[in-house]
């Protein structure tokens, strides 16, 4: 292949890579919800959460500051969607969060997440330490290395 053609091919490849990068950024942008992190109707503030999938289990964590631990409710809604709610020790108003141009108060922290793999709901375990909830759900099909 001549040097000129090589150069052209490299440039074309770089253009493709740039397009892929832009597309990836767009997808990340779409995936990131632009909804507010609160809902006045349900009096809920959205909690931050993470889902880790290991070969044996799915571990869900959620940051639940200012909650009453005995009110934590963890539900697997349709095998693959988990919902976590907890009542806060005290109601939080918009003004408490530094917002004066809205009115409303919140009593709960709530989050939902997709599990992506099937889990055994009956064997779900959870614990909460310093406002960090950890839920462990064994996977239906445990992945093992042959």
């Amino acid at each position, binding site marked *: 292949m001549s040097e000129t053609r090589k150069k052209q091919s490299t440039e074309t490849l770089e253009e493709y890579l740039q397009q892929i990068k832009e597309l990836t*950024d767009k997808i*990340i942008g779409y995936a*990131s919800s632009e909804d507010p*992190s609160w809902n006045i109707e349900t009096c809920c*503030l*959205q*909690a*931050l959460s*993470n889902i*880790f999938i290991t070969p044996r289990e799915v571990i869900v*964590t959620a*940051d639940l*500051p*200012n909650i009453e631990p005995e009110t934590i409710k963890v539900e697997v809604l349709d095998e693959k969607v988990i919902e976590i709610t907890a009542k806060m020790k005290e109601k*939080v108003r918009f003004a408490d*969060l*530094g917002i004066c141009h809205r009115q409303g108060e919140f009593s709960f922290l709530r989050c939902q997440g997709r599990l992506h793999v099937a889990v055994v709901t009956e064997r779900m375990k959870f614990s909460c*330490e*310093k*406002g*960090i909830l*950890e839920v462990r759900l064994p996977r239906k099909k445990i992945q093992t290395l042959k």
Partner: protein
Amino acid sequence: MSEEVNIVEKKAIQSDTMMVIGLPDVGLVGLIATSYLISELKLEELAFMDSDLLPPVVVLHKGLPHAPLRMYGNDKLIAVVSELAIPAQSLHTVMRKIVDWGHAKKVNRIVAIGGIPLENRQTINEPEVFIAASNQKLLNTVSKNGLKALDEGYMVGPPALSMRYSVNKNIPAIAILAQSFYNYPDPQASALALKELSKISNVNVDVSKLLEKGEEIRLKARDMMKRTQEEMKRMKRSQEYDFPLYV
């Protein structure tokens, strides 16, 4: 689009000060720590960044508009904070400008505060704090004060760029990195980072209020953390988990 980045000074800037940088990043460790410093030491707003590279946002405080990325200080200290997640694609330019500005203002040292993400952070009562320094002499000095050096590994994000550009400008630079949650605000890690800062500087603040207000901060910082997480994904923050190859 103009890519110009300006730092607009509102007050006279003292020379021979230490610059502390706390931008939104892992666990918002640096941002929470630096904001607490500003509040506890009652630092005055000295300057702000004006750039088309930052989103079209102003922050209102007591009815008045402020640029999201601002510099506060007194005669000994300049603190840089941002109330906005810095877009990953602008981070190089923004950090280079901050360091260049610090160089022009003859800062004697740049300290970036940040977090080291830890997967099992919730199981750890007292996170460890590590230090990286821009030269051996500085590393020896901070190590003598009982700080642990981050011997091997990758640094990503604002502390990494602060270190890189400070070295280019020959400014002594330190990164204080506390083990923290990756995408949950971590005021405890911020408090520990501030304790370490007090060992290597004359900046000494009582962190008890920060720890007391921990839950309130975690509640208020959810949105900032969410936006920062989106930018962290773009800057390939997960590289910090990688093993470095140094044969």
